[in-house]
């Protein structure tokens, strides 16, 4: 009896804990409410199955504990019951999976008209790049990084000259516009993670990954690195400030473009810039 009661108490206690828990999601600040919804669906289904199944077990333990003279049933199998249970489980699984896949489909498809921003990670700090007036990020590569060209932009690529470079780990975003975050790392894996946005993705050196979201609530949020990247992992923080367009624009314009950062005017000749950069040693260290 006691064991059955303890098991049941544990299950009931877990349910109560879940209902009363002060530890819950940070308030949502992006469009990914659908992720939260999917999570809640999953939570309700799995929670219910867990509670029912385990209470049943607790009951069985209490009811069929050994008594003198008692004898167990002999029941090798029951096809009907097993098929029925399998079917019910499949339905439960489908009920979780279907919304999950639908939301995933949204998650990986960047909507038309999303703006782009690049987050560049390195041990253990963040910097960012906006595409500038042309709306396109110039190509960039780790092997081109020098002290003058910390983003490794390709000086031959005209699309990169107007790219706006943001160092210092603080990113500003305009509220209400979808943004595709393009992720790049110069050294090891990192992960761009803002709990309030729900979305996250790894930065992988040697390739470019992405995710998208629409910041919906203005405010200041912390960027955490969520992929182990060495001893400084837990200190790799940044800030993202979501503000309205009116405050965002001036902020963006404060930051230098690639050409400006090299001490050039944006319209200056590509070849000149290339000479400048490669004169400093180009790709070779």
């Amino acid at each position, binding site marked *: 009896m006691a064991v059955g009661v303890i098991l049941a108490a544990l299950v009931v206690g877990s349910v109560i804990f879940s209902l009363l828990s002060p530890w*819950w999601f940070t308030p949502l600040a992006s469009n990914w409410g659908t992720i939260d919804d999917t999570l809640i669906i999953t*939570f309700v289904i799995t929670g219910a199955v867990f509670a029912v199944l385990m209470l049943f077990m607790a009951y069985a333990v209490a009811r069929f504990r050994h008594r003198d003279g008692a004898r167990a049933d002999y029941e090798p199998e029951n096809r009907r019951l097993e098929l029925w*249970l399998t079917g019910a489980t499949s339905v439960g699984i489908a009920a979780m999976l279907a919304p999950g896949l639908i939301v995933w489909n949204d*998650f990986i498809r960047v909507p038309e008209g999303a703006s782009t921003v690049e987050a560049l990670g390195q041990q253990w700090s963040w910097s960012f790049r906006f595409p500038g007036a042309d709306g396109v990020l110039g190509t960039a590569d780790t092997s081109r990084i020098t002290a003058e060209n910390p983003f490794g932009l390709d000086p031959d690529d005209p699309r990169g000259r107007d790219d706006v470079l943001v160092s210092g780990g603080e990113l500003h975003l305009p509220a209400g516009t979808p943004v595709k975050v393009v992720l790049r790392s110069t*050294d090891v894996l990192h992960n761009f993670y803002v709990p309030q946005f729900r979305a996250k993705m790894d930065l*992988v050196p040697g390739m470019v990954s992405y995710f998208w979201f629409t910041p919906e609530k203005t405010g200041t949020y912390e960027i955490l690195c969520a992929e182990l990247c060495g001893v400084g992992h837990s200190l790799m923080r940044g800030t993202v400030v979501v503000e309205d367009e009116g405050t965002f624009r001036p902020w963006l314009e404060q930051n230098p473009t690639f050409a400006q950062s090299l001490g050039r005017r944006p319209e200056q000749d590509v070849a000149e810039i290339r000479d400048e950069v490669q004169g400093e040693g180009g790709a070779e260290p």
Partner: protein
Amino acid sequence: MAQTAFVDEGLDHEHGHEPQGFIAKYIWSQDHKVIAIQYTLTAIAVGLLALVMSWLMRMQIGFPGSLEMVDQERYYQFVTMHGMIMVIYLLTALFLGGFGNYLIPLMIGARDMVFPYVNMLSYWTYLLSVLVLVASFFVPGGPTGAGWTLYPPQAILPGTPGRDWGIILMLVSLVIFVAAFTMGGLNYITTVLQARTRGMTMMRLPLTVWGIFVATVLGLLAFPALFVSGVMMLLDRLLGTSFFMPAVLSQGEMLEYSGGSPLLFQHLFWFFGHPEVYIVALPGFGIVSDLISTHARKNIFGYRMMVWAILAIGGLSFVVWAHHMYVSGMNPYFGFFFAFTTLIIAIPTAIKVYNWVLTLWRGDIHLTVPMLFSLAFILTFVAGGMSGLFLGNVVVDVPLSDTYFVVAHFHMVMGVAPILVIFGGLYHWYPKVTGRMLNDTLGKIHFWITFLGTYAIFFPMHYLGFVGIPRRYFEFEGIAFIPDSAHLLNEWITIAALVVGAAQFLFLFNLAWSAVRGRPSGANPWRSTTLEWQTPETPPGHGNWGARLPIVYRWAYDFSVPGAAEDYIPQNRPPERDAPGLHGSLRAEGAAP
């Protein structure tokens, strides 16, 4: 090849010569029972090391800065070694090398493994891999701190502890472990296939053997992936090749690498890593089935479904690996495929859970210590499996990945549930190994502390994950969204972890004390049906079966058969001639569906 005769029909010939002398008998032994004990003790020893490391980690998380020795570097080294030791060197070795070695020959009615020499070699190779692993604590720079997943480029670049020697020794140790496992695994499979005694068909095998068998198959096919990725990373580290290494600028310096792909490593690693988690789960499934059936005095419900489920889980586990990579930057369309396969796995697993519970239903449940551990296993495993469904459902994994929710998931399902099975199994088979019972009172104290304690550690941890607290963080200083109450919760978790850890020493004491002082158990204290309990001697002697091998007449679950005098019929008990009993009637029933 000289062993061929070993399993020939005329098995009843005299079995070799018993080795003489302490060394031949206990050190360089080729007897599966001795090797099993060697494996078990070694695994427990490194397991304790990993346990102590979890204390140190917890101290840092619950009471930051309280232990001066735990700085950032050490913290990551502890996390890495804790995870790696627990998964590979403790659980894999204990389930397969320990339980597998001891139980397979006994349960199938064989005199030993089919390749005893290779079996012995397997243990010593395993020991070597453990020693190399432990050696990494003493090399300059210490063991690697790259996380147990050892993701490159991080694992071999500066900025990660132990990137000079630690990572090399880690990889070498893993490669050696794979060799040891392969030797053992060949043995287990061949033995199950070829050394079963007369009458022991595959469908009469106890589920323990099925679980270990399929886990071994998984291991033999999955460990090569670890081997391959380990060797390739070693080359990247030592020779400067670029399998996994793209061009990287490490701490201001451009390295010679170019063109490689870190994702390639992740795919290879998880192609091993996911089957690996079932390698440590399937033997647990098998063992717990037998424990429940025996201690509830009832046949396991749905034996065939149980076998099929084990096979299905084993097969499926090879096509779900990238669910660990949903947010790794891999091709996003893979998400659909892997979410689907991952959630499908829940179905055969669910069948197993239902069947355990249905076995209890209308049973005659003896709440012995092994039974208590089995019940606790079901509860913690289902809890952990449910959180797995969150993570498997791609888009739900996005906010939860790399948070404490994942830590809570895999501890429930791997750090608690299988460990509880191991304890249950040890309480259950200890009498066979030593001839004495473990002390029951100590056992019950140990059980309640471990069960309630681990639940208290890991259940609330899910909610830290909901808050969004990232895993593998040395400290949470100055993160504004983490409420103070979460730090408080962390303190409680740490305290629970210390208590639970301490309780394990109670168990170790019980193990040692009962070996000398325990109540003599007799041959079959649990009145069990399977063959290992029917040996002529307890503990079983060299060659296990005395002069004649047992002959098997029935499946492993003839408990409480209607009309039978006792509530269990051993597998090797011949039928009473013309007994009208159940078999006849059931057969008639089955014949007319």
